[in-house]
């Protein structure tokens, strides 16, 4: 369902991605680990259509996303490291930017994924007054607007407490049970338990990690 081939990218003369190839199925969680600055976020931002690669191809459900950018919009939900919130607006207004159909938004809040994320509890609060965990939940809620089949998360648990981390893992399990595909970068060992397949990024390339060697890979990486 996700087919990425030979992606390359560079910042100026510095090559960050050197032929990344990756594939994933429905209901699969793909984990990517690696040290800071190795290109994980760059890869995810390219997969989400935020950056353009220098070369390579990205297909979601057989559709070439680089040829038709609307594919990114329809097929992927992207949760960047920082939360894309307008601090002065309420959570509801922030969500409206991503759910233009108000009826749909209300339905999601009442019985959809936004309800599972627990957003209705603080939907009227200004985004500036939310805790880190609440902001991350709203960010995930935004990314899930339009129920995209692929969810891309860039270190979703960074700087969150243990309860929030557990909550996020719970939401992701539900998303995976509903046959969504998750691509996640992480430094958290506990999040690796979610992953069906794990890759380590080294020198701009992805290397698969055997299930038995996951702990060792994480330790070696850092």
């Amino acid at each position: 369902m996700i087919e990425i081939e030979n992606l390359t990218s560079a910042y100026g003369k510095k090559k960050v991605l050197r032929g990344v190839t990756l594939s994933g199925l429905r209901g699969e969680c793909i984990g990517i680990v690696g040290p800071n600055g190795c290109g994980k976020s760059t890869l995810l931002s390219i997969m989400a259509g935020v950056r353009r690669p220098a070369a390579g191809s990205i297909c979601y459900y057989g559709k070439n996303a680089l040829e038709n950018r609307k594919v990114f919009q329809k097929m992927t939900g992207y949760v960047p490291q920082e939360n894309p919130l307008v601090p002065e607006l309420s959570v509801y207004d922030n969500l409206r930017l991503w759910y233009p159909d108000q009826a749909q938004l209300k339905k999601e809040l009442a019985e959809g994924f936004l309800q599972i994320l627990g957003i209705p509890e603080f939907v009227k609060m200004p985004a500036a007054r939310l805790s880190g965990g609440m902001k991350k939940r709203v960010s995930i809620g935004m990314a899930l607007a339009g129920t995209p089949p692929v969810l891309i998360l860039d270190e979703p648990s960074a700087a969150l407490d243990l309860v929030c981390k557990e909550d996020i893992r719970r939401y992701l399990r539900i998303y995976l049970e509903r046959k969504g595909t998750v691509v996640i970068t992480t430094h958290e060992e506990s999040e690796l338990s979610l992953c069906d397949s794990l890759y380590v990024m080294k020198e701009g390339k992805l290397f698969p990690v055997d299930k038995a060697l996951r702990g060792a890979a994480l330790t070696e990486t850092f």
Partner: protein
Amino acid sequence: MKRTLLLWRLELKRTVKQLPSMLCFAVALLAVTVICAYAAGRLLYQDSPALEVTVAVVEEGESPLTELAINYVQGMESVSEICSFLTVTKEEGFTMLREGGAAALVILPGGMIEGILSGANQPVEIYFPDNAGIESALLKSFTDAGVQMLRVAQAQIYGIYDTARAYGTLEGLSVLYADVDRYNLAFALDRLALFKKQEVSATESLTVVQYASASGILFFLLLLGMACYPVMRPASIVLQRQLLRQGIGIGAQCFGRWLCGLCGMAAGCGMLLLLIKAAGAGAGLGQIGLWFFVLFCITTFAFMIFQLAGSAVAAMLILFLSSAVMLYLAGGLLPWAFLPEKVQELAAFVPVTYLLQAVRSLYAGRIQGRTIGVLILFCALFAAVSHGAAVFRVKKGTEA
């Protein structure tokens, strides 16, 4: 398009929420501007003349008649209002001239008055500093004019004497001299007419009050951009990228923020107009279209600064400094005529020059087509730079 309209609507909602804090900031800025305008007004409109000229006088040889003549000149009202004479030695006089302590040095020869009476006419020497300030320049101008007058009068006196001698009518010389004096005083040296009829104004066609209030209004409007920082500062890169992903282009995002800035500026400007009207000084300032045009230009300028600076604090600092400097260059703080020639040449390239013309035209009731054209060009340039800066930041900003 639906998403874009929704973004603009939410941006406006954000502006409404921020309006009370922006207006409080605007009130503080207004207080600062009023204090600056009052101080500038006092400088330009004080009772005592703004010009005070010190003239160093050297008397070569003691002479009671020369002393008497100096006291007479110094006692004349038109002279004593702006000039003070200081009797010094020659060395002291040149030192004062070098160090800027005197606008001119006058060296009176010994027995000067006696020489005038006897016809010896010993010359008086007047020195001006090399880098003459405005006082010295004015004094030099007056002296040159005086020398020209004396030359003409001297030529007349010698001419009358030679003519009277040639025709053998030297006995009627005193009557002829008296006639020439009368004609000179009536037609050539009508000093009173010169003082009463010739009006010179550094503020051109405006009164000093209009000049100061136009500058004050413009300075306030430029600073108002600082008060509008909550709505004009760029959104976070991550939000802008997410919006871009949703199909809302950078241009549309920028327009939304600019529109909010315009609304914030309009609210601040409306508050200013209400205060002006309450103070009973709103006559001639009711040109809504012109106000809107000025606001349009200033908002675009402030928006560009916010986009270029990136952070709100840096933008506010740049906005304050650039506004003050450009207002000075445009002749808004000091009348243009008092500025150095090089600065006057720069003014043509400063957008505030044309904004000032637009604000001043609120008093005149009409604006020159050229001013509108130049301002529209500047706005187009500001908009292009803003868009370029926003695109650069969003596209080139690196991920963590």
